[in-house]
C-alpha cells in the first residue's frame, strides 16, 4: 500500500509541477504580449526528451541525475498535501530541509562530472545561492517552530485550519514577505537565477545535459516547484482543506513568482547572496524577535 501511495504521490507531484511550468510559460508569454504555448507543453517536452538519444560522460553523471530526482521526490513525500501524505510521518521541517539539499548535490555531482566549465560555474553559483537562501529560510522556519511549539509541518498546517483569518500570513506578515523573497531564490527565478543565466554561462548546469538527462533535470525542477510552493502553502496559507484547494493555492504562489521573474533582471551571484543575507534575513529576524518577545 505504501509503495503504491509513494508512486501515486510522485506522479501527482510531477504532473502538477509540469502543468505549473506550462501555465507559467503561458503567463510569461502574456506578459511578453504573446500567445504562448499550450498549458501541457512541458509534458510534451518531457516525453520528447525521454525519447531522444542522450550523451553521458561517466557513471557519476547518470547517478547524479537520478539522485537529484530521487532526493526531491523523497522531500516531496514528507510534505503533507492538505493533511494527506504517502506514509505516516510527522513531516519534520528539519528532515525536509536536509533532504532538499540532496537534490542540489545530486545535480552538482552530475554536471561537474561533465567537465564543462560553464556547467561548473553554473553549479557553483547554484550552491552559493543555496548558502544565500538557507539562512533566511531557516530563520523563518525557526519563527514557525517557536510559534507552534512543533517542528512538524502537519501541526503547523493544522493549526491554521478553520477560518481564513487563522492563516499564518496574518499572524506573521513579515515572515511571509521574507519567505516570498526566499522562495524566489529557492525556485531559481529572477532576480536570483544567476545559476542558469543563459547570457552568461549558457544555461549553466544544463549545458551538457542532453535527452534523458535534461528530461530528468526538468522533472527535478517540476518536483522542486511542487515542494517549494507546497511548503509555502503549508507554512502561510493554511495547508488547504482538500488537494484541489491545495494545488490552487500552490498555483497562485507559483504565478506570483513567475510575474516577478518577468519584471526583474538578474543579480550577479555575489549581489544576490548579499541581498538575501540583508533583506529577507533582516525581515525574518525582526519577525522572530516579534514572535519571541
Amino acid at each position, binding site marked *: 500500500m505504501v509503495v503504491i501511495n509513494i508512486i501515486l504521490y510522485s506522479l501527482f507531484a510531477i504532473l502538477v509541477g509540469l502543468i505549473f511550468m506550462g501555465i507559467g510559460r503561458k503567463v510569461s508569454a502574456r506578459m511578453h504580449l504573446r500567445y504562448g504555448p499550450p498549458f501541457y507543453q512541458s509534458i*510534451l517536452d518531457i516525453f520528447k526528451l525521454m525519447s531522444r*538519444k542522450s550523451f553521458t560522460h561517466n557513471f557519476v553523471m547518470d547517478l547524479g541525475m537520478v539522485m537529484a530526482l530521487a532526493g526531491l521526490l523523497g522531500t516531496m513525500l514528507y510534505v503533507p498535501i492538505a493533511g494527506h501524505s504517502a506514509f505516516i510521518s510527522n513531516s519534520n521541517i528539519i528532515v525536509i530541509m536536509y533532504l532538499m539539499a540532496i537534490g542540489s548535490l545530486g545535480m552538482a555531482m552530475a554536471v561537474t562530472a561533465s567537465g564543462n566549465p560553464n556547467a561548473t560555474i553554473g553549479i557553483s553559483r547554484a550552491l552559493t545561492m543555496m548558502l544565500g537562501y538557507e539562512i533566511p529560510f531557516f530563520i523563518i522556519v525557526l519563527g514557525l517552530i517557536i510559534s507552534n511549539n512543533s517542528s512538524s509541518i502537519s501541526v503547523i498546517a493544522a493549526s491554521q485550519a478553520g477560518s481564513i483569518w487563522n492563516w499564518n500570513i496574518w499572524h506573521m506578515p513579515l515572515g511571509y514577505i521574507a519567505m516570498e523573497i526566499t522562495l524566489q531564490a529557492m525556485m531559481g527565478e529572477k532576480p536570483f537565477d544567476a545559476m542558469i543565466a543563459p547570457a552568461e554561462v549558457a544555461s549553466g548546469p544544463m549545458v551538457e545535459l542532453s535527452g534523458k538527462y535534461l528530461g530528468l533535470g526538468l522533472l527535478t525542477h517540476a518536483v522542486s516547484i511542487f515542494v517549494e510552493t507546497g511548503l509555502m502553502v503549508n507554512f502561510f496559507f493554511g495547508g488547504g482543506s482538500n488537494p484541489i484547494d491545495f494545488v490552487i493555492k500552490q498555483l497562485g504562489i507559483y504565478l506570483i513568482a513567475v510575474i516577478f521573474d518577468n519584471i526583474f533582471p538578474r543579480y550577479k551571484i555575489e549581489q544576490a547572496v548579499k541581498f538575501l543575507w540583508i533583506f529577507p534575513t533582516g525581515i525574518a529576524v525582526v519577525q522572530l524577535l516579534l514572535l519571541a518577545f
Partner: protein
Amino acid sequence: MQIINYADEERRQEDNRKLWDKVTAYFRSRSLWMLHYCTGCGAMELPPIMTSRWDIERFGIVPMATPRQADILLLTGYASTNTMKRIIRTYEQMPEPKWVIAFGSCTVNGGMYWDSYNTVNNVGEYIPIDITIAGCMPRPEAILDTMVKLMNMVKSGDAKAFQKYKDNYGYYKANQDKLFARTAPVLESASLKYVHNETEGSEQ
C-alpha cells in the same frame, strides 16, 4: 558515391511504423527546440518570429542555449569557412534525432556571395539538410511555414537527414576535408607571396 534518398523511399512504402514510433514522432514534432546560434544575417528575422506577432512558441518551438539540448540547427544565412567548421562541430554535438533548416539563398547556392573566397556555396554538401528556405532574407511567414512543414515531416517520419549523414559519412567527410584540410595553396599565384622575415628588415 551514391546518396540514398530516404524521403522518396519512405513515401513509396506504406506507413508501417510501430505505434510507439508514431507516438514518439508526435511528441517530437510538438516540441522542437532550436539552437540559439546566429550563423549569419538571417538570424535577424528570428526575433520577430519569436515575439508577439508570429510567436513560434505556440508550436512548442523555443530557442535553446547549447547544441546538446537542441533538436533543430538553424543555418541562418551564409556560412563562411570558419562558421562551417563550427557548424559541423555543433551538428555533431547534437544528439539524435536532429534536423537542419538552411535559411536563405546563400546557403543553397551561395546567393550573392557565390564568388566569395570565404563562403561556402552549398551547405548541403557538408551536412545534410532537411529543408531549405529561399530568399534573401526569408520573410517570417516563410520561416513559420517551414517550421510547420518540418513539424509535419517529423510527425510522418520523413525528416531523416541525420541518418543520411551517418550512411553517407564518406561523402560528407570528403567534402569537409576539401574545404578545411588544405595543406597547399589552391591557386598558383600564391608563389608570388612576399614573406617578410626579420633578418631582411634588420639589414636596412
